[in-house]
């Protein structure tokens, strides 16, 4: 059973793309293949000109560490590390030193100034997602993949997290690819891909919430 069939898609630099579709449509698989978490049985995934399907385990790890950011619905942070340590984790793993002023600025930007020393258990779900975003942004990745980043959050907190992703695109020119089932979240993106049974069935540019709702068949 193939989760994806003949999907061919490019995500332009500095764009914000939402991927939608019913459950089982292959949207998470698309994201996992594109981010190097999973391997496609055939085909190629290029990131900044390199085919990552040829990468070995170590190269994939370095890819995820240095060039790709990943944010999941929940459990994004190492429980024993503080917010600050979680943000600088990837640079430490790469044996580089994170610029403290930039870390502080990022944490400030995501609204976590003064919470640097808190552990994940002491932060709310929304705050944890914001730490994950700050961690992803610190490395200036080629592309940031987010799998239902607002799925575990209430509406208002979800909006704040989406606003941060939008800001990353607008202010830093960050490329963002987000899987979501929420039309309101998808409406924040520049374009929305619709997947069904592992195929791309439609693409909408700058759609409104209503347009997305109609496309999904009026299901809200």
């Amino acid at each position, binding site marked *: 059973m193939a989760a994806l069939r003949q999907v061919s898609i490019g995500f332009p630099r500095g764009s914000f793309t939402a991927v939608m579709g019913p459950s089982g449509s292959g949207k998470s698989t698309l994201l996992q293949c594109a981010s190097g978490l999973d391997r496609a049985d055939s085909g190629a995934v290029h990131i900044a000109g390199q085919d990552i399907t040829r990468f070995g385990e170590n190269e994939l790890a370095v890819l995820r560490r240095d060039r790709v950011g990943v944010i999941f619905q929940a459990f994004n942070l190492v429980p*024993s*590390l503080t917010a600050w340590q979680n943000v600088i984790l990837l640079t430490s793993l790469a044996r580089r030193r994170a610029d403290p002023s930039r870390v502080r600025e990022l944490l400030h930007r995501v609204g976590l100034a003064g919470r640097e020393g808190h552990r994940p258990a002491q932060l709310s779900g929304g705050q944890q997602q914001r730490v994950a975003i700050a961690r992803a942004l610190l490395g200036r990745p080629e592309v940031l993949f987010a799998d239902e980043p607002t799925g575990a959050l209430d509406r208002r907190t979800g909006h704040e997290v989406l606003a941060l992703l939008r800001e990353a695109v607008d202010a830093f020119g960050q490329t963002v690819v987000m899987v979501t089932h929420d039309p309101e979240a998808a409406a924040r993106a520049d374009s929305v891909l619709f997947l069904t049974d592992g195929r791309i069935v439609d693409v909408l540019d700058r759609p409104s919430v209503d347009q997305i709702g109609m496309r999904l068949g009026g299901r809200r």
Partner: protein
Amino acid sequence: MTLVLAWNNVRTDPMGFAASFAAVVLAVMLIGGSGLVVTGAATRDELNGVMGLLVLSSAVSGFVSVFVVAGMLSLHVLRQRRTWALLRSVGMTPRQVSRLITAEALVVAVLAVVAGCVLAVPYAVLMAAFMRATGLAPGGVPVEVATGPFIVALVVGLAVTLLAARVAARKAVGVGPLEVLRENAAQRRLLPWPRAVIGVLALAAGVVLLWLVPQVKPADAAPTALGATMVLCVGASALGPVALRGMGRLLGAVVARLDPGAGMLARSSLVAQPRRAMSAASPVMLTVALACTFLFAVATTDAAAGVIRTGPSAWVAPTLVGSAVLYTVLSVLNATAMTMAERADEIRLLRTVGTKPRQLARMVCWETLIVTCAGTLLGTGIAAASLTMLGKAATGELRFAYSLPQYAGLVLVCAVSGLAGGLAATRRARRGALLPD
């Protein structure tokens, strides 16, 4: 229903059950077997001279058995705290959960006690053969199946298993289910007051025993020193998390400097979860403290009496304490594996954000080495205190005899079994499929 749930728990955590089961089997075997050897030796008059040594080594076996089984059961119950929380969140009362935990422990205990009693006889025969070979009992020790040792082993095995499970169950259900499910890495209290009181009392009792060592009759000096070591071990393991957090900070800072990424991860998990780390450090401490006290107490009293042991007779003390050491070393492996297995989710997360498999292996190794090192330091300190006082009793000077190769061997064995346990338990998370399904 309880049975279905219990069976389901066994199926989902086979490693934890196997570890607890093995711990109880070996404990019962050790207690029962050394009991058989002691009762057998008591029937022969020519063995009166070595009776003291035999009883001491049996005491060591009994002590480590109780200590390891209690630690293992509590680790086992607390390891499943997510299961208990889940059962409570769907409507089981704390009492029902507590009863479920006790029922599971009872099944493990009964099966393991039976197996342990069966194994006790061949173990006793083996020990008797060793004693004959080393010249401790040239005429041999008659091993007869007597009921006394079995009853002791049975009662101790059942009681310790059930008691440890009940205490851990009370701890497990004392926490709100949501709190557990919400992935609470920040442990609530480093040192709850009952634990602190037990620790302080045990340390105080240990100090009194240390002071008594040179005061009692010369024949009682060695048993008193061994008693001091045991009591100090109890105290140190109760207060251990505090010491371990300090050592975790100190040693972790060194490691984080050598290996920034993996070292930082190792340090932070030790500092955030010192109690988890202590459950792995405890058996190391126990091994080092008891083995050193026993081995070097014999060496110290021999040296004071001008006895020089050569050939097979040099192996008398190591043989007597060997099986207890083997048991604690196995429990080092067990405890490290169980504490590390808890980290599977964290390791997968670290991989998704780009930690290399080798960095993860290094993280596991650093953490295990720091824990081993902390356990060794605590154990060495305890043994040194007891032996110094024993030296004072034997020669009037604050000195004792020791063997560096034996000591180094002990520490090495602990470190190797810790590393093996840690690496094996995390292998799937480090190298297996990244996505759970």
